């Protein structure tokens, strides 16, 4: 690149990242602000941790967070199982009946507007309840099923693209030596795609933890998730406690992402040294 165009690109990168990060930083900074006005900095009494204390004593938020954790944990584990099966099938079996449909069904949820997915799942649950009496009412179960349906699509894509980039020689060699396909999967394939499965699990957890629209459609009384509580609070205006919640979320996510990428970079380096 010549000097002028690289200057232009650098400016764009700088402005772009400023655009992405200023809102996030503003929440972190104002979570330590003493004033209840949130965006007016009270220099005399700040920084303070009083909103952190207030958040940890807020029963409504803590209860909702506990429900969100439960749903996200079951969802992540279930989606990883379903998504790995689908991703493995799509990557390794070139021909099978229903391949086209399975491919379409795992791509569509990625772009489907959430209001449509939410409404359609709720109507299914209502119809099923009328027909066979299950699920009785709506709550954590229906919400988890709904989350798994869209999360598994993401896991499928991740596992599928990981399998597409590594060649089948190892698996074939093991099978030629007489290993049962199941053994090949658990001994050879699974360790190789493990980073993809880990990313898929984390992504599925996050998607569920963040979801507002699909949860609102499929939850029942007494099973409000954290985003649902946050949404009803935010609609009434800004609140210092939400800034604290955002800061904690950002801290946890940053630590997790940085940790996982360092671990993967180290693993990749070790693999290069000793193949």
């Amino acid at each position, binding site marked *: 690149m010549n000097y002028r165009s690289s200057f232009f690109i650098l400016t764009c990168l700088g402005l772009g990242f400023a655009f992405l990060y200023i809102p996030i930083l503003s929440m972190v900074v104002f979570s330590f602000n003493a004033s209840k006005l949130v965006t007016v900095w009270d220099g005399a009494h700040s920084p303070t941790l009083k909103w952190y204390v207030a958040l940890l004593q807020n029963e409504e938020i803590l209860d909702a967070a506990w429900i969100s954790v439960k749903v996200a944990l079951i969802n992540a584990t279930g989606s990883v199982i379903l998504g790995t099966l689908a991703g493995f099938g799509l990557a390794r079996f070139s021909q099978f009946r229903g391949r086209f449909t399975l491919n379409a069904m795992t791509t569509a949820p990625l772009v489907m507007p959430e209001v*449509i997915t939410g409404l359609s799942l709720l109507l299914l649950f209502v119809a099923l309840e009328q027909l066979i009496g299950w699920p009785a009412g709506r709550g954590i179960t229906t919400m988890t099923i709904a989350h798994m349906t869209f999360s598994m699509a993401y896991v499928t894509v991740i596992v599928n693209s990981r399998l597409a980039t590594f060649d089948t020689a190892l698996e074939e060699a093991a099978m030629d030596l007489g290993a049962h396909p199941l053994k090949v999967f658990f001994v050879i394939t699974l360790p190789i795609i493990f980073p993809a499965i880990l990313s898929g699990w984390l992504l599925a957890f996050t998607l569920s933890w963040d979801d507002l629209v699909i949860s609102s459609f499929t939850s029942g009384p007494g099973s409000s998730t954290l985003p649902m509580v946050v949404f009803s609070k935010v609609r009434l205006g800004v609140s210092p406690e939400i800034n604290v919640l955002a800061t904690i979320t950002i801290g946890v996510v940053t630590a997790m*992402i940085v940790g996982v990428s360092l671990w993967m970079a180290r693993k990749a380096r070790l693999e290069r040294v000793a193949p």
Partner: protein
Amino acid sequence: MRTAQQLQRIGISGRGLVVALPYLWLMLFFVVPFIIVLKISFSDIDLAIPPYKPLLEWVGKNSLAIKVNFNNYAFLFTDSLYLRAFGNSIKVAFISTLLCLVVGYPMAYGIARAKAATRNVLLLLVILPFWTSLLLRVYAWIGLLKANGVINNVLMSLGIIHEPLTMLYTPFAMYVGIVYSYLPFLILPLYANLEKMDWQLLEAAEDLGCRPWQAFYKITLPLSRNGILAGSMLVFIPAVGEFVIPALLGGPNALMIGRVLWDEFFSNRAWPVASAVAILLLILLVPFMMWYQSVQARETAGAR
């Protein structure tokens, strides 16, 4: 082994078992629900739980009558609110996609041309906001944009403006929110595409006397076509049905179809009307989804 043979005899293979579980799951929880939405979009509103009348009714003893009514659809086409909401959603999603391209293309290009070590850090910085809650990131903009918010306070203390600007609850705020939230979805596929580019082509073009902008226009842009399309679809399709951003930043007049569907369902309890809105939205978006899938297929085929 004997069970495997027995299973094979009735047409079930190991391969079939692997894909059967996800296949059945998605059939039951992704495809069947749409059939039910379609069904309910043709039924009458009822003051009952659930608030719609059955399509099939026993008339007399042995005859079953199907009552299909098109009232919900007719209603959507007669009340101008719905058509305006559809039109406005497409307009907002289209402009947002263009804005994302303007902001995101140079970023994806810059990341793809950076040194390997810097590239990984920059990619991480793009992915990081995507992992933090969308709701909280949209909420951050309320604090930045409101009358006594951060942007107004900064501009006023610098003496650039004397009265606070009205930014929150305007179309401007909604565009900022959508571009902000969907930017990573555009950058990542575009980066994946640009990363595979053979940059020697650009050097060759410049050696042959092309100006940098000409080289970009004639080589980089056409070669990154699939990346542009894939990224744009990932922004456009969900943005058409977006609910959270217009609800929080757009103010009461932000007429978006996702919001209309939400209100029909939660405020008016008009499930059949909400279903009809969902079906029309789906009909509108399915061509784009198929386009996205074919672009994706071309991309992965090119990568192998």
